[in-house]
């Protein structure tokens, strides 16, 4: 074979090999950047009556979620968790805790709104409406009037809701949740614990279901 043909083959094959190596390298890097379960501590703040609980409060399996209402990934997980709370309402205790991230400007006001609604017994209703209508408030400089609108839809006592949203006690609840997330060394949101053990975020409903089924089987 003449040298010029060999050179051409070498050029094209070389480029294809380099491109292939880059793609493989990118995939390895992306996989390595997934949260490392080993760096997260077990749940250090036990579930108590102060927590927001859904499902069976006496269940032997507890799923704790740390989330931020403005986080796109939390929004993506919301329907999946909602489905689980329906399908496992008798077998699992679901707990929601706040972990507002610094880059999400409206994460704290929305967390405060759920706590203010909680004082009137409507935490989960406010939680649902905030996730369902995230497009209405996520880009606002001040989401307060929209959040007050949700409180009206839920027939809450508005002066009390507004006062609770601004109270130090409400802020402390959100701050305490965030402090527990930081102490657990959570890599971000949403983060989940099953019976006190951190789990890598399941990719699908079926993956999540398998984890809960496995935890339920271990309690038998």
């Amino acid at each position, binding site marked *: 074979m003449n040298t010029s043909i060999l050179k051409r083959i070498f050029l094209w094959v070389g480029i294809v090999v380099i491109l292939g190596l880059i*793609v493989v390298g990118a995939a390895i890097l992306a996989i390595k950047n997934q949260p490392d379960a080993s760096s997260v501590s077990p749940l250090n703040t036990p579930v108590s009556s102060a927590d927001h609980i859904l499902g069976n409060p006496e269940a032997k399996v507890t799923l704790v979620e740390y989330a931020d209402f403005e986080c796109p990934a939390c929004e993506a997980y919301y329907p999946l968790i909602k489905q689980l709370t329906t399908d496992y309402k008798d077998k699992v205790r679901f707990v929601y805790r706040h972990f507002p991230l610094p880059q999400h400007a409206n994460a704290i006001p929305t967390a405060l709104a759920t706590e203010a609604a909680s004082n009137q017994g409507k935490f989960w209703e406010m939680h649902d409406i905030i996730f369902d209508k995230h497009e209405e408030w996520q880009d606002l400089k001040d989401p307060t009037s929209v959040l007050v609108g949700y409180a009206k839809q839920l027939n809450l006592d508005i002066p009390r809701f507004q006062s609770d949203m601004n109270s130090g006690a409400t802020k402390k609840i959100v701050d305490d949740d965030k402090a527990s997330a930081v102490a657990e060394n959570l890599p971000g949101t949403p983060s989940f614990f099953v019976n006190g053990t951190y789990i890598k975020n399941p990719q699908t409903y079926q993956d999540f279901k398998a984890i809960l089924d496995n935890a339920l089987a271990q309690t038998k």
Partner: protein
Amino acid sequence: MHLLKQNKTIAILMMVFAFVGFADAAYLAVEHYIGGTVLCGLTGGCDIVTTSVYSKLFGVPVALLGVFYYFSVIFGVVAYLDSKDERFFFWLAHYTAIGFIASMVFVVLQVFLIKSICVYCMGSALSSTLIYYLGHQVHKKHRSMKKIYE
């Protein structure tokens, strides 16, 4: 046919920057498909940009479009080095404007609309700007040579 020596250097530099851009865009594209919405990291920035409404164009992730763009530049440069066709390289130099304009639009979106900066996206913008700059040099040289022969 012989390659113009200066054009060969430009072509190789263009390919180097296109490889950097390809690696950058490939990483973002893989991240999008294997775990784009899995977690909002504590440092922010990248997850806000890559999960924003501007991260897709007609349902296709912008990062994947970047992969195709850099791949086409690499393919074009290799085809030029292989064929030694100067006219083809001149057209490739024009083509680099597409990547440059797209990158500038995305930088404006990050700064003014998304209000978050993704370092990988900025890295890609830098690669496409350097590629365009090199393409512009080819264009300038082509025009000055044309004047000499006219």
